[in-house]
């Protein structure tokens, strides 16, 4: 009986020793990075108030008041072409001295960065290679047009269909 107990204790001891073996940690040299979505799943339309709350925060770096958003909502409802009236409202925003935009120099000198940041800022996603190339070419081809500014790029993004959805 005694030798039986010794054998049982020995087996438990061996089991514990074996069970406490340290796991191997695999390392794959992967860099951590922020992930962004794509535009495939954006299928919910923003309400007028959501749209302008996000847009004004985006452009002015501060939220609009509830009164202002309610007024905007009424004005948008009073016009049949929502995209048109939003463009008019955006151009009102752009006429404000408080709007914060990147410089034209930044857009033309660091075009890649400008495109990337604009996509992330408005669409919460990176541009595809095709989008990046198109915008790069477009900005370069408009370098000689002094009226072509980041304001126009921001207006196009803010008025785009994708910005209406989340």
């Amino acid at each position: 009986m005694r030798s039986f107990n010794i054998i049982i204790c020995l087996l438990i001891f061996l089991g514990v020793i074996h069970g406490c073996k340290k796991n191997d940690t695999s390392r794959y040299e992967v860099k951590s990075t922020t992930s962004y979505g794509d535009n495939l799943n954006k299928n919910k339309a923003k309400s007028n108030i959501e749209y302008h709350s996000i847009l004004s925060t985006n452009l002015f770096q501060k939220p609009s008041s509830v009164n202002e958003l309610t007024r905007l909502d009424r004005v948008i409802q009073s016009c049949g072409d929502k995209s048109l009236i939003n463009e008019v409202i955006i151009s009102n925003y752009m006429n404000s001295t408080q709007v914060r935009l990147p410089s034209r120099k930044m857009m033309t000198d660091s075009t890649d960065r400008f495109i990337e940041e604009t996509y992330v800022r408005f669409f919460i996603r990176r541009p595809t290679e095709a989008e990046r190339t198109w915008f790069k070419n477009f900005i370069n081809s408009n370098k000689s047009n002094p009226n072509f500014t980041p304001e126009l790029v921001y207006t196009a993004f803010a008025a785009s269909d994708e910005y209406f959805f989340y």
Partner: protein
Amino acid sequence: MKRRDFVKKTAALATGSLVLPYLLPTGRLFARSNDPKAEHVVYVIFGGGLRQQDSILQRYLADSQGFNVEGNILYNMLEGAPPSSKIAYGTTPSGLPNGSQPIPKILSQSIQKQGTIFAEMRAISGGHYGGLNSLVTGSRVEGQGLKVRPINPTIFEYARRFGGFKATDVWFIGNTISNSTPLLNSSRHPDFGLQYGANFFAPGITFGADGRNTLSNAKIYHPQEELEPMYKMKNFLDNSFNIRQGDIPGIKNTDEEKTRIKEFIDNTFQRQTAGLIPMPPVNSGDGTTIGYAAEVLRVFKPKLLVVNMSNIDGCHSNFTGYLQAMHKADHALGFLWNYIQTQIPEMSGKTIMTFVPECGRNLNHNPILDENDWYGYDHGDFNSLRVFGGMVGKNVPSNLMIGSESNPIGKVTDFSLTIADILGFKDEVKNAGLLDPQALSLFDRI
């Protein structure tokens, strides 16, 4: 080529060019199904309910308040002498009793003399949204919920699809953004919908204090140097996203049309500041709505413009105010017709104006008394389905009264088909099969 072959081929070519459909510049496949009767239509809706007894039957207070005073307070529209006592339907000059000064007549000849009046028609619904819905769709509206677009296509969509008109050719000017009014510029019918919808403004908001604070500081961009590249980028982004047609709420204008409307909005604020918006001499509420409708007509010369008024609905609680609103609505109607004829040469003599109340009002009063101790009237009973309507302008018979109290002729659902008839696509609208089956063009009722 032999003579016989030449004749044969020429005959075949001539027959083919007559018979085969062709793509018109507007995008239409077929030519219009009937000859247009006029080039433009202006459709005025007296939203809110106009009681037959107080309006066309000219009984003033006799059939409503128990006073034996009759008379016509719609003298731009109808023939008939105004009331001679208990004058409360006019404006209120300082120091004088409420409503004691009637508004001078604008038209030298009444609409009745110039056109055709349907004295006793039938409305589809005695309620608000249903009433307006039936007026713009020409269909019966059973089962139609509130706060949704109409189930059946509106006259705007018929006009754009079958008439081949662009968005700025077709307008709806609403008096308000409540009561689902902004949803009436297009239906949610799968074969029509927003892609054929009308441009819409509710001027009290768009060009009122809210609109001025929100829209009047807009930048006007250079069309080639700024707008063109901006729209190129936007169109690229939209093509990359590529949502389904109709997912974006609201109708769509082309880039050129958008630029025109933006200029219109900007100019309107400037003209408003300068006091240049064409307003009826007595204006407020409905009068202002009509003034902005006139401004849209002046600038865009649309093929179809529908304008809705609603101040008469105050009759629920203020009969005196209702009489005044009715009188002002007649004044506004007279102003609009006069403005089209005298100030818009492109539309003068080429336009038909039609008009109809959304519904009537009840036979019996409610218990609410106003300052004159006159009772209010709601709408919803059989009497509120009694309405009158009319039309005036090119090709409309003049000085003609159709129907009477004992002989009702016409339904409010006739107006959509009448507009289709005027603009030349009556058969297409009829064949779409979505109208009230009993609807007829008012021209066919004459």
